[in-house]
């Protein structure tokens, strides 16, 4: 049998899973852990709706082999929350009107989280480049960029 057993930290807790070598991280997280925040938008790496954090860096859930989650720190959009409350980026997306149909929102939140971890005070241009792999059909991106700016501002 070719299945692989993996162990990793998921949204702060140690977990394990058995996955097929051809299975992607996206389906593992959605189907085995019921974390349906990350979405299947294209399955080809072009839309960003499946974005997750691997060891703090944003990556595509659809093109990351589930087997390579082994030993890593994995965070999904569900893991961006601050306990029961929304995390900074999530709250900003809500507040700035950056959520319409919301299908792209988890991917945007994850991409933004990675961006802000690397550039805590990003320029608008850095934000736009940081989100260039996340497609949105509803918002035109304006409010999303604004939300990331808001989330980056230091808390008074």
């Amino acid at each position, binding site marked *: 049998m070719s299945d692989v057993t993996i162990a990793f930290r998921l949204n702060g807790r140690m977990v394990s899973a058995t996955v097929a070598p051809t299975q992607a991280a996206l389906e593992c997280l959605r189907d085995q852990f019921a974390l349906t925040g990350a979405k299947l938008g294209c399955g080809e790496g072009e839309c*960003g709706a499946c974005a997750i954090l691997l060891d703090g860096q944003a990556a595509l859930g659809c093109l990351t082999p589930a087997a390579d989650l082994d030993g890593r720190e994995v965070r999904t959009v569900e893991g961006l929350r601050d306990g029961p409350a929304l995390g900074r980026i999530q709250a900003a997306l809500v507040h700035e009107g950056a959520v319409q149909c919301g299908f792209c929102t988890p991917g945007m939140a994850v991409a933004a989280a990675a961006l802000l971890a690397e550039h805590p005070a990003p320029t608008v241009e850095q934000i736009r*480049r940081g989100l*260039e792999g996340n497609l949105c059909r509803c918002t035109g991106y304006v409010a999303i960029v604004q939300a990331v700016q808001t989330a980056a501002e230091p808390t008074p």
Partner: protein
Amino acid sequence: MNAAVAPRYLRPATLGAALDALGAPGARAIAGGTDWMVDARAGRPGAALVVNVLRLAELRGIAADGAWIDLGGATTVAELLRDPLVRAGAPLLWQAADRFASPLVRTRATLAGNVCNASPAADLTLALVALGAEIDVHSASGCRRVPVAAFVFGPRHTDLQHGELVVRVRVPVAAAGAFHRFEKSGTRPALEISAVAVATAMTFSGHVVRSARIALGAVAPRPMLATSAMAVLQDQCLDERTVDAAVLAAATQCQPIDDVRGSARYRKRLVAAFVRRALLAARSHAEEAR
């Protein structure tokens, strides 16, 4: 080998174990998996054994090595972008990385993966060809050093033999005052499969071109050197006649095809436009340096 049967998977802890595993029938290496997973999702894993080499220590790390920069084959595009050695010593590679796919892909896509996937539109490989980069290819029985330009033959076709693995990539450090410019088609800064890309690396003695390497991407089965144009430029000043002749030579030498991303004629026009842009910018660069 029946590709429909699920492959086995290994993530060896050492390079030696990986090379042994790669010697098995139907074995192939994966690093970030950004190319392989597309096929795997479509039910075409194309291998009986998948060997994950992404985290092998021997394939990681970027270091100066005399006149070269030595990079691990599993260096991700994001790591390239963050590294000061690459930014200063191989600006052309840095520029190609900056226009590569998207931030979500850059954290996983690797240098060796881009070379071995051998897409005619591969941006990193194009920069490596323009820079005269080399790769160190290991197997269980030894290793060899190959210029990237000689390693890639055509779409998905390289000189990688069964049981071999690209372990290191070596890039010549840019000379002081070198001019590097990566031009790519499209309305976006990145997230674009190049219809045309042009990678230019030049050095000057005063106004005179001392060395010129121009590589053209997505206009031939593999990244190609615009050798006719390079010959025109060698030891010349970048006056109008020379620039025009080089532009014409590059456009004539490339062999683009019609496809969904553009017609052959438009691609030739872009090659001409990009080569001209690069040469005019190079000329300004040489003038400012004096």
